């Protein structure tokens, strides 16, 4: 980034130059302010991404080391005013003291039997409710920190090509919003860095080589493979 003492190119008005240097200064500040604020989020997504890509690493095998507990509780059968699977599931969860994102994995075969899963990072609840007997059996699996990290990486409450699963917990929506914010923040950091690099004439060539090489390799995977094969 040029310093304030650098000469203004001929023909450029003072106000334009001031505006430019002001933008450059704030662009630079935005770059590291965004980076510092998002640091922990970025480290989480980077490290958990690495774990997800190496499921054979011992630390990535969290499911093997889960702790399971089983219990049964009395529940009140949902009345006729409680309509739909989601409302019924919420009532059962309230009775069991469970909070989290509901995951529909099975189709209901009988009006008296109701099976569903509830997930939150680190905890998996497999609920089997017998509405006729007014009892619910719960299998709870708790996983370690590595499992929590991997769950946070993909905890969106939705699945591609499965419209039945939608976000139904406020905290899932909040986490999904934070994922959007982190992604947008990354975009800001990338473009602010490109602007800063362009302000450094002596670094343009090596920087162009680095950016060009990265773009070429990335472009090969995004578009090139389809052309080659």
């Amino acid at each position, binding site marked *: 980034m040029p310093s304030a003492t650098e000469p203004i190119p001929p023909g450029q008005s003072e106000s334009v130059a001031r505006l430019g240097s002001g933008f450059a200064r704030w662009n630079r*500040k935005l770059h*590291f*302010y965004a*980076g*510092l*604020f*998002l*640091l*922990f*989020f*970025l*480290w*989480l997504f*980077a*490290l958990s*991404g*690495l774990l*997800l*890509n190496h*499921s054979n690493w011992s630390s990535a095998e969290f499911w093997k080391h889960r702790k399971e507990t089983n219990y049964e509780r009395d529940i009140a059968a949902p009345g006729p005013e409680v309509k739909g699977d989601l409302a019924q599931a919420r009532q059962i969860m309230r009775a069991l003291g469970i909070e989290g994102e509901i995951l529909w994995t099975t189709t209901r075969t009988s009006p008296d039997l109701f099976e569903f899963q509830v997930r*939150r*990072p*680190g905890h998996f609840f497999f609920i089997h409710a017998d509405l006729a007997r007014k009892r619910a059996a719960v299998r709870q699996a708790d996983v370690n920190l590595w499992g929590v990290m*991997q769950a*946070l990486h*993909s905890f*969106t409450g*939705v699945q*591609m090509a499965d*419209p039945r699963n939608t976000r139904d917990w406020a*905290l899932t929506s*909040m*986490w*999904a919003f*934070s*994922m*959007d914010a*982190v*992604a947008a923040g*990354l975009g800001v*950091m*990338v473009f602010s*860095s490109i602007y800063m*690099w362009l302000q450094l004439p002596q*670094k343009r060539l*090596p*920087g162009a080589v*680095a*950016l060009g*090489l*990265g*773009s070429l*390799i*990335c*472009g090969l*995977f*995004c*578009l090139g*493979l*389809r052309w080659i094969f």
Partner: protein
Amino acid sequence: MRGRFYRLIRDLHLYFGLFISPFVLLFAISVFFLVHSWLPRLGSAVSTTRLVSALPLPGDLQTLSGRPLIDALKPALEKAGVSGEVGFVQHLVKEEKLIVPVTIPGREATVTISLTSREATIVTREIGLADALVTLHKSPGPHGPDIRMNWFYMRAWRWMADTTVYLFLFVSLSGIYLWYMLRAERPFGLLLLFAGGLTFFGMAYALCH
């Protein structure tokens, strides 16, 4: 000495950052598609169907499963002109057929092989750039480690994804060092770091407990 170290770190931060920026953008853009379970369709997905016969199928194909099955199918797929990462192979025992999904980022092919006639019907769908970004974001992923990465280019992608993470960690650590060297920016930077940490750990705690 300290000045030289600072300049070295600053240059590496810049060049490594520029190198990984297209990958970072790929991961960042695909986040929006994954979080909202939505893919923009800029054009209609193009689908083509063709038939290939006289496939070289090994005799013990029906006894194989997992990675050995995929490896045994490779010559047949090559003869059929289908390249890409092979997914979970379905074996329809009654019909004596194999359904083989083959993926290239942005393209899906379903190869239905008849074990009796040694013929294959290949349905290829061009699914576009957004799908390609999502495929790459999720690759290799945690599922089916024994069969995944059976195509050289997807193995290369895994190396690139790992490299991106390692370089990203270096860029973030070097970024902290470069910020810390700016004495005037320390107080506000620390405040943001603290605010970010509080937000992150607060949210993680609320989600997990």
